[in-house]
């Protein structure tokens, strides 16, 4: 009832359309790695924030895995208090500039927005991005409220979204936090996986830097499970609790003939070369990457879109997404699919690769595919794709990127005593992230399998709460 009365009260403001976000035109952006959307201007942010109905029972907050006080920060934006809005978001979200860019808001906060029932929902993600960017570019660092030191030490394994979130929460509770990262740069998937044009690395660095200012220590080049084991973190390095946020980084291949031909990449390798190693700046950076002319990308998730759009920017003439189901089942975000389409990426739907064919130097030159049709629903609830006999055809290609998913890396479970995993190798936890091993929590993709940045952050928050309770009970 109260929401309805608010509706009629604000009836004039509802008609203000959702503010569009300016972005680089497709023809231009396919030649560079600069970020595609430019972000709101302060005027646009004020206008968009004014659309918020300030519902008494906001539908947006329960749909946010890290429970950002969305109406709270938006009303601060509407008042022009951008720094205060940033501080408000940071109360529960350590990575606002990241979330404002890569969260699937349409499935989360914005899906719960009352305005969205009749009109377009408030652009919560764009506002979050605006606030975080404004704060980063114009703000001066201010220490948030910090609890007094507890003398307890937490080791965080992996510096991706789950680990960073957890580190931010626990340092504020007064615990000593060290993050161990296997690669040479912190950020996990935010650094190696998500391309510059979708998430500039400067932004990830700034967010990591913010945590360091709070006192979080980061040690790169430490492969936990190899350089140090989890048991050694307790016994020799003296940590009181360990959080495993190592992601699910093992690439899945299709196990079809020709998969090891030159020019057939896993999306992980392709994106790591380009993003982490900056191969798109070769030869100014030393890591090479092959440049395909006619590229195929297998799979249709966000990683597939990222790979396809990277290939285009590296100089491909045609890029095809090859996917065995139909458009409706494509797992990528609507915005990513839209951006990919705008950039001229071709979708070969209901198509499944059968084998790769190579030339005499061992390079891929074509891919044999078969057309598919959708049959009965399978275990995932989606209609199962079935090959159409005799529909095989050859697709010429000189580069293939396999983006059909990733799975758990056995490195830590295999070197950690008493850590229970399920049959797929994921770490078994309770709802707080507690594992079968005393003092060890886990969260993010290594528990759930490949998911989103924000869900990993949500897992980090939950585990942080549980670890804090545990540490204070020691």
């Amino acid at each position, binding site marked *: 009832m109260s929401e309805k009365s608010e509706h009629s009260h604000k009836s004039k403001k509802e008609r203000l359309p959702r503010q569009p976000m300016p972005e680089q035109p497709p023809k231009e952006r396919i030649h560079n790695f600069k970020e595609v959307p430019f972000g709101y201007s302060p005027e646009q942010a004020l206008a968009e924030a004014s659309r918020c109905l300030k519902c008494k029972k906001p539908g947006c907050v329960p749909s946010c895995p890290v429970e950002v006080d969305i109406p709270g920060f938006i009303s601060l934006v509407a008042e022009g208090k951008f720094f205060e809005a940033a501080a408000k978001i940071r109360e529960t979200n350590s990575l606002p500039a990241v979330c404002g860019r890569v969260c699937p808001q349409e499935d989360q906060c914005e899906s719960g927005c009352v305005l969205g029932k009749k009109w377009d929902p408030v652009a919560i993600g764009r506002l979050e991005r605006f606030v975080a960017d404004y704060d980063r570019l114009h703000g001066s660092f201010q220490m948030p409220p910090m609890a007094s030191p507890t003398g307890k030490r937490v080791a965080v394994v992996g510096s991706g979204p789950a680990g960073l979130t957890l580190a931010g929460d626990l340092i504020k509770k007064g615990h000593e936090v060290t993050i161990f990262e296997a690669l040479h740069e912190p950020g996990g998937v935010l650094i*190696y996986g998500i391309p510059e044009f979708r998430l500039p690395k400067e932004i990830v660095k700034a967010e990591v830097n913010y945590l360091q200012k709070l006192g979080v220590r980061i040690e*790169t*080049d430490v492969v936990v499970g190899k350089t140090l084991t989890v048991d050694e973190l307790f016994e020799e390095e003296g940590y009181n609790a360990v959080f495993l946020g190592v992601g699910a980084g093992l690439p899945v291949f299709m196990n079809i003939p020709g998969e*090891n031909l030159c020019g057939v990449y896993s999306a992980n390798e392709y994106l*790591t070369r380009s993003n982490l190693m900056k191969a798109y700046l070769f*030869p100014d950076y030393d890591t090479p990457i092959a440049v395909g002319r006619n590229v195929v990308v297998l799979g249709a998730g966000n990683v597939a879109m990222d790979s396809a759009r990277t290939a285009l920017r590296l100089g491909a003439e045609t890029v095809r997404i090859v996917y065995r189901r139909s458009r409706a089942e494509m797992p990528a975000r609507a915005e990513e699919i839209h951006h990919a389409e705008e950039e001229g990426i071709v979708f070969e739907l209901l198509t499944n690769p059968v084998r790769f064919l190579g030339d005499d130097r061992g390079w891929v030159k074509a891919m044999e595919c078969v057309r598919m049709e959708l049959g009965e629903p399978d275990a995932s609830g989606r209609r199962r794709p079935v090959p159409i006999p005799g529909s095989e055809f050859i697709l010429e290609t000189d580069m293939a990127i396999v983006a059909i998913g990733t799975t758990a890396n056995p490195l830590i479970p295999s070197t950690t005593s008493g850590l229970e995993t399920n049959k797929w190798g994921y770490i078994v936890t309770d709802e707080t992230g507690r594992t079968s091993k005393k003092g060890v929590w886990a969260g993010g993709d290594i528990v759930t399998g490949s998911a989103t940045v924000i869900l990993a952050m949500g897992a980090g928050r939950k585990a942080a709460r549980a670890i804090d309770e545990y540490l204070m009970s020691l």
Partner: protein
Amino acid sequence: MFEILEKKQMAQGTVCMFRLKAPRIARKTRPGQFVILRANERGERIPLTVAETHPEQGWIRIYFQVVGKTTAMLARMAPGEIIQDVIGPLGVPTHVDKVGTVICVGGGLGVAVIYPITRAFFDAGNHVIAIIGARTKELLILEQEMNSVCHELHVTTDDGSYGRHGFVTDVLKELLEQRKDVGMVMGIGPVPMMRFLCKTTQPFGVKTMVSLNPIMVDGTGMCGACRVRVGGQTRFCCVHGPDFDGHQVDFEELSKRLMMYVPQERESYQRFQAEVAGGSSR
């Protein structure tokens, strides 16, 4: 953090040894394991086998051959300078057992890789025969070190300038013909050498292990760049290897994959040489 403590150039300057400060890695590395190293901010990540460790003093010893920009750049670094990143130890340690008689074969830079493995087999109480070889006398490395960790050392050079004239496989074949007690052969060197070595041992039915060196990026199983076909199955060299049963390895696929970036590597190296000649400091 990863300081160069000592540097030595050998094999006419084509091979370089670094003793590097890396306490955690020194404590953990076992024979057969490797590190991934990144020389500087813009550098690529390259895998290099650890030839020796000193856990108490916290250093590791690595050898590399100058083949392209990264290794050329490394070879110009001096003691006291810092390597940006050294990550490890990576890979599965070599499985060292008491098998009786073991033949360890190293070719070229492969001698540096086989050295810690040879010592491990020696320390495990095996009768160890070592064969090392190089193209020519000046390219032969670690002869004395190898001599101290085996019962019998054979040296070959392709041009006959030192030791026996011929290939390591010539000696290997003779030894296998003479002795029936060889339990295992471990061979490390350039891909053509390992391939030929496996062909040599096959008719004798002797278990033959090789340590593979495909292109790698992260080294923790994440990227799949280093995939190799072994016994018809795809394996990731960084986490399943680097040691594999040589009779099962698809060497042809491995050599082709190793050629993948040759044009870019050439471009990069030429650019670097021009910069160095032009006196640029980068």
